[in-house]
């Protein structure tokens, strides 16, 4: 196995994934700082996204060198074709950005509430094995509605309990979806 193949093999592992993510975050922060004075503000968003796509493409390209070669059309052939296509588009977009020919970043709102909600969603899913689907979903719905500044408690209770009951009868009883029961119910 060549050194590139070994490197690709190492990246295609759980520790490799962790390393990729850490380097990814560092890479994006570095690029953002490096180009703050060069790029206008209205291009920074798509510049970062394009760089992220290029990074993912290059990581995947290196990993393809670890794929075993067999047959006329190898497992790496089509992934590489898609990677080259994606890289080409990213390079074109970067050149357009630096030449000022790309459309400006669309006007967006604040990151605050989406990030808060993403955090709530991650907590919702992460706690599901412990609280169980039904309790966890009930808590999520109440918290999720209140965070959005809706305080009509009768409606909140009806919606939450109604939705849990709907899921229980339809998905759990009728469709036999095995929702996590949670440690609390087992205790």
């Amino acid at each position, binding site marked *: 196995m060549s050194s590139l193949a070994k490197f690709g093999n190492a990246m295609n592992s759980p520790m490799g*994934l962790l390393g990729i993510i850490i380097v990814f975050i560092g890479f994006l922060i570095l690029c953002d700082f490096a180009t703050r004075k060069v790029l206008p503000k209205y291009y920074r968003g798509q510049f970062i996204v394009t760089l992220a796509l290029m990074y993912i493409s290059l990581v995947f390209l290196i990993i393809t060198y670890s794929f075993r070669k067999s047959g006329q059309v190898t*497992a790496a052939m089509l992934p590489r074709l898609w990677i080259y296509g994606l890289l080409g588009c990213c390079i074109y977009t970067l050149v357009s950005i630096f030449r000022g020919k790309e459309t400006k970043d669309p006007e967006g*709102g604040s990151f605050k509430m989406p990030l808060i*909600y993403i955090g709530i969603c991650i907590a919702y*899913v992460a706690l599901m094995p412990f609280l169980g689907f039904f309790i966890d979903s009930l808590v999520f719905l109440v918290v999720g509605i209140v965070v959005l500044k809706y305080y009509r408690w009768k409606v909140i209770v009806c919606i939450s309990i109604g939705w849990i009951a709907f899921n229980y009868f339809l998905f759990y009883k009728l469709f036999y979806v095995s929702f996590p029961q949670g440690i609390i119910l087992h205790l």
Partner: protein
Amino acid sequence: MDLLNHLILGFSSLFGIIPILAITAGVVFGIWVGAMPGLSPSMGVALMLPFTFRMPANISLIMLTAVYLASNYGGSITAVTINTPGTPSAIATAFDGYPLAQQGKAGWGLGISLVASVVGGLVGIIILILFSKPLAVVAVKMHPAEYFSLALLGLTSVASLGGKNGIKAFGMAMFGLLLSTVGLDPISGVKRFTFGQIELFDGFNLIPALIGLFALSEVFERLETKLPETSGSYKDVKNEGEWPKWRDYWKLKRVTLQSSLVGTLIGIFPGAGSSIASFLSYDLAKRTSKTPETFGKGNPEGVAASEAANSASVGGAMVPLLTLGIPGSASTAVLISALMIHDLVPGPMLFSQQPALVYGLFASMLVANLIIFVIGLLGSRLWVKVALIPQQLLIPLIISIAVVGSFAVNNSLFDVFACLGFGVVGWLLKRYGFPMAPIVLGMVLGSLAESSFRRAVIMGGYSVFFTRPASLILILVSILFFALPFIQAHRDKKRLLPKN
């Protein structure tokens, strides 16, 4: 004459309360299954199957087929109201259906999807009845090279899905195609981009990906701005209940019929699927429209094209099933097991040995479409009310639906995390002008394109794509379809430049 006699025989077998009840139950269940993200038409048919064991063969089949038909329509309900396609075949419906709902015309989106579904379903069944045998002969001759070329043709619709920025759309399609390669390679068994995660051996599941990319990304985008405090989130609440008039449906006749034909033809080819049918029809409708620039912004033609095609593909998928015993889709594979449970062998002999059963099935499919229309019309008055739910309640509910839908596919929390991940990625990509639709297109077509390409090369080398006439024609059409928007844009640019 024989055909007419058989059809009369088929319709006569439906006279009675039991067959009509069976069809109605199948339609209601199918619409529910189709509307719920995470539940696919094949899952609906499979879930209904045990209930039909003790029924007579004809009742069993008409009920299961009604589920299959209705679930293809059901996916459009959530696609229009909350931008969460209930089935992959309703993805293209969301492109224009949801913008219609955002403009306060949810009734229009739902009405057009209903009528187009019914018309598409009827056209598909009529073609099935009239041409099933000759079409089956064509279907079975499809070489992997032709499947690859068909997938390539499907990918050309990325040029019309990308809006103004064709390069970004193309890049996103490549990204989607790359994501479709994650998992164990189907031919050599190599672990591709799995990072040691067993859950990734089968790759990313399409349902969580599309729920994340469409529904969750939309939710996160809505959260960027302050939500309105009063109930109802659209400017003109009065229009929620407004429905198209018959003359509005009549204006869509060309695109509906055109898409029905395309959908039926694509559905005939085993493995092609209703998703490809709806994407191709959407793309064709856009190319042949007088106002292509309005697609993606609430053009009723987009909704009609997608829905007519995905419903018509059901009739097409039944062609290889009944005539050759080859399932054209996951749902028809379940139908084959239903036939076998009742000691029936699908194939040419079924037509001669059991004409009452076969033509009774055809008749039931025609009746099922009419029942879909009635139930859809009654139910749509209810679905449209979703648009009036305050955003503060709707957003957590959509997220909960997304979690349930993603989990229900494989009973796996990994899929839920994947859905969330796709939601975040989709939100960021959308925020900076990268379109979502091509990613989904790439994921839908990626595995078909790759497996067909590799099988074709193994069977006949690289030249097989150009030596087989059907494949060559499809490739040339694909190149033309892909290049046309860029040529048109270049011509428009030249025209707008000053003459000197």
